[in-house]
């Protein structure tokens, strides 16, 4: 386990940047596409954007963690910019931008830490300096007023960008508190890698899933979320599977020398690393 004191001024800096870090938008009721962690999966990212356009999405948002896990981290940046995807920062982006020594996912298992370090080092070394600066300028949250609703987009949670909100470990009362304390009645996050939603009296919660790797269900597909905001203020989330050329991605990962364990996940749909953070219900549905 990590023996060193977990020293960091990250939270203080985060607090200092909170005011600058919120992008506020006003949009008419419309169809929005919410893309979760990309993890350098440029093929799935391009596929999801094309799919969302076909479905008539009028605005596209990415909820952060552009790098990690996959190959050629520089490739995702032009795809996001050329398609006008409004992007906010995840913990990986924040670490890369600030030159931190790891992704701050908080693993304690030495095996998980081993793979997390490999992935971070690979991504850090191959992310161009100008893209790191671009990551450092991303907002931490996006607030959207639309259809009379207050929609808040962030990476992990409105409290912390690396907070895990799993379906089986997030009580209703806790979500109601987030709605109250963060002035929103619809909240969308990513970070865990598994999509879920819950409608409560205080608001709608959606974890939009991720594009970077399958969601530990034994299929190679990945997921994003369409959010339909209707004129009457109702919001309807739809989870959309993305079938992409995962074999091509696996070939690129092998050619780059990324761990076989990562490639296996892309090919089989089962997570092989970073399992420590899964609560028991989500873990029971998994293979490993």
């Amino acid at each position, binding site marked *: 386990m990590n023996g060193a004191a977990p020293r*960091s001024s990250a939270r203080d800096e985060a607090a200092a940047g909170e005011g600058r870090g919120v992008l506020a938008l006003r949009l008419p009721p419309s169809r929005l596409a919410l893309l979760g962690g990309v993890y350098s999966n440029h093929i799935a990212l391009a596929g999801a954007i094309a799919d969302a356009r076909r479905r008539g999405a009028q605005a596209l948002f990415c909820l952060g963690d552009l790098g990690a896990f996959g190959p050629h981290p520089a490739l995702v940046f032009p795809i996001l910019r050329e398609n006008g995807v409004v992007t906010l920062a995840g913990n990986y982006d924040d670490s890369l931008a600030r030159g931190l020594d790891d992704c701050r996912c908080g693993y304690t298992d030495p*095996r998980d830490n081993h793979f997390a370090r490999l992935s971070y080092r690979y991504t850090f070394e191959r992310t161009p300096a100008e893209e790191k600066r671009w990551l450092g300028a991303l907002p931490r949250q996006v607030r959207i007023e639309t259809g009379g609703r207050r929609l808040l987009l962030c990476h992990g949670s409105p409290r912390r960008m690396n907070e*895990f909100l799993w379906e089986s470990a997030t009580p209703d009362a806790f979500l109601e508190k987030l709605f109250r304390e963060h002035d929103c009645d619809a909240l969308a996050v990513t970070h865990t890698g598994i999509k879920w939603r819950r409608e409560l009296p205080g608001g709608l919660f959606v974890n939009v899933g991720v594009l970077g790797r399958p969601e530990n269900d034994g299929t190679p597909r990945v997921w994003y979320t369409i959010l339909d905001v209707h004129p009457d203020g109702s919001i309807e989330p739809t989870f959309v599977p993305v079938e992409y050329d995962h074999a091509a991605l696996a070939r690129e990962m092998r050619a780059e020398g990324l761990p076989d364990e990562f490639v296996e996940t892309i090919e089989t749909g089962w997570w092989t690393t970073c399992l420590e953070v899964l609560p028991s219900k989500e873990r029971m549905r998994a293979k490993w």
Partner: protein
Amino acid sequence: MTVIPETDTTDAGAGPPRADPPLVGIEDLDELWFQVSGTLCNLACSHCFISCHPGNRAFGFLGLGDVKRRLEEARRLGVKEYYFTGGEPFLNREMVPILEETLRHGPASVLTNGTVFRDATAADLARIAKESRYSLEVRVSIDGYDASMNDPLRGDGTWEAAMRGVEVLVSHGLLPIVTIVQTWPDEETLRVLDRFRDTLRLRGYARPRIKVLPTLRIGMEASRTRGYLPHERVTPEMLEGYDAGQLLCSHSRIVTDRGVAVCPILIEAPGAHLGLGLEEALRPFAITHAACTTCYQHGAICTNLGAGGAGRDR
């Protein structure tokens, strides 16, 4: 009224109190702990951080009614997770109904030595885990991959008894988290964990979950190895540039039969009992105790995910 325990086994060797103690506030009550079986345990481990043993009734049991009232308070505060510890929680005959009630509110974790529950209890745990939409985590303490590593710490025959406990849980479809206190040098961690995983697989646990905990030099452990030295304390200067969100006291409290204390490690420490109600107990705490040093060094180790996994640091 706050009741202060009469003896302090947590802080041997402390220097004189500082005029400017390092204070840690609490932003959100994310984890609520319950000292559900008081200090009563069927084992007398030589490294126990709160001196629990078969004759220690310094703290009493919590009943289902007590827990229900606290859950209602906790719901209003938006608590995120619930933890149950002791002593040995399954000495409390209401443990299963308590967990069942808790799982209506949120995810629950119970920390057991794995030696006392029977097949029927494991079946009940599997049932309530399945019926709830929240996760039930059963954490079983086993301090080695074989009896020669574990039993000197936890008592003769306890390794085999706890491994049987894991087998029973796994046979009912549960995925217990086996916690192991680190008693080896850092460089041996991978070897120890690999061997432990292999052993658990041989006993039928195909997907073993293991969490390593650092030792806390307090309680029984202080006399087994050594307590903290007077200079091993957190100072206000050490909190400069440090993310206090790493510390358990910045997001947790524990309910005992005497009221609410700051954290599960310090229930025997003077000054650690902060009030009778949860809201009353949400006030800053001076981290002047020896055990606070371990929390400072390792982060909130007591929770399932540790500090980073719980989402601190941003």
